[in-house]
């Protein structure tokens, strides 16, 4: 016998051990998320996937589904908070979409579209972050990092290389490269690594592939993120 819970009034079946987000995803119901990826252990840090379970807020990517749970997701209150979190991610980094190769394929941008984010609302930090172009095949643009840690998890858990890490605490948290020089060229990172495929924004970019698909014809230009099937 399969178990179920309700999500915004809709009955969602789940298998034992599945999280709310995994069960919703399997049932074709979209819950906004940035740091979650189906291939990796949930991190629970971006908080975009926050839902209310029996009236209390929790991250749906880490919360295991239980029979009879009453889960709310598409409420004005939760979407307002998701939009505010997304706005904070935009102002904390340097997100200039018109000059970003990932524009149109970017989960941060597509999520902002989904949430109806018309402006960044907050004051911009305009942080100063150097790019790392040392690697022959890959450019790192730290300006766009949202600290989802997907590259950290991919490099550590799949590639077994531990190329990336999050360093510092609180507002000073930032992505680093595990090399004495701090440069990607001084690691064994390659374009074939899983870590090279998982960045939801435009930090890890293959060189010499710029604008292969024109702006306006990219993934989320064609369909909103809520209607794309992959959990990517």
């Amino acid at each position: 016998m399969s178990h179920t819970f309700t999500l915004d009034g809709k009955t969602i079946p789940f298998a034992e051990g599945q999280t709310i987000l995994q069960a919703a995803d399997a049932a074709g119901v979209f819950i906004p998320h940035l740091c979650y990826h189906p291939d990796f252990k949930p991190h629970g840090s971006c908080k975009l996937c926050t839902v209310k379970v029996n009236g209390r807020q929790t991250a749906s990517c880490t919360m295991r589904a239980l029979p009879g749970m009453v889960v709310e997701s598409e409420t004005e209150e939760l979407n307002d908070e998701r939009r505010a979190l997304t706005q904070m991610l935009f102002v904390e980094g340097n997100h200039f979409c018109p000059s970003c190769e990932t524009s149109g394929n970017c989960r941060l941008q597509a999520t902002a579209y989904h949430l109806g984010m018309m402006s960044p609302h907050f004051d911009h930090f305009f942080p100063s972050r150097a790019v790392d172009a040392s690697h022959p095949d890959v450019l790192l643009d730290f300006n766009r990092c949202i600290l989802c840690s997907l590259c950290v998890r991919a490099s550590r858990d799949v590639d077994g290389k531990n190329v990336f890490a999050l360093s510092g605490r609180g507002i000073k948290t930032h992505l680093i490269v595990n090399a004495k020089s701090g440069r990607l060229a001084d690691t064994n990172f390659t374009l074939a690594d899983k870590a090279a495929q998982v960045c939801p924004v435009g930090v890890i970019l293959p060189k010499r592939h710029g604008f292969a698909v024109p702006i306006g014809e990219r993934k989320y230009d064609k369909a909103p993120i809520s209607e794309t099937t992959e959990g990517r």
Partner: protein
Amino acid sequence: MSENRKLRVATTSLAGCFGCHMSFLDIDERLFTLLEHIEFDRSPLTDIKTVSPGTDIGLIEGGLCNAENVHVLREFRQNCKILVALGACAVNGGLPAQRNHLPLTTILEEVYHTSPGLANGMIPNDPELPLPLNKVHPIHEVVKIDYFIPGCPPSADAIWKVLTDLLAGREPTLGHGLMHYD
């Protein structure tokens, strides 16, 4: 907004490239429909130099890169009932804001002194020239902005949608396909 008088609309480009104004003109023949409902006040299209008090809608292209930009923006806020940020630069600083991680003195030195072919160049300091700001800022960081149209530039359809929503007294929204940051 159902009264018969035409709504007065002012527009300006601050630290922008006039691309958003070009996109606005891309509404093409819909301009005739629009002109049945609005008249232009201060705008590069009319060459009127100041914003009339009681102007209904102000469209601001571009962010703030110098003191004159701030002055013009404040004049718009003072005289417009509704202020709309038009395009990426007004919304988040855009391309000009990409200088923000460099010290202003370094930029001026590079542009006027150390660039090749600029022997004896001097940094302009005529009192007529507005002073550059230390950093480029989006306009909502200085005055209250009522609505935002993102995009570089926003498409003519996006501008048309927001303007017609405003004219009809609706809260402007941009759905999928009209909402673009690029």
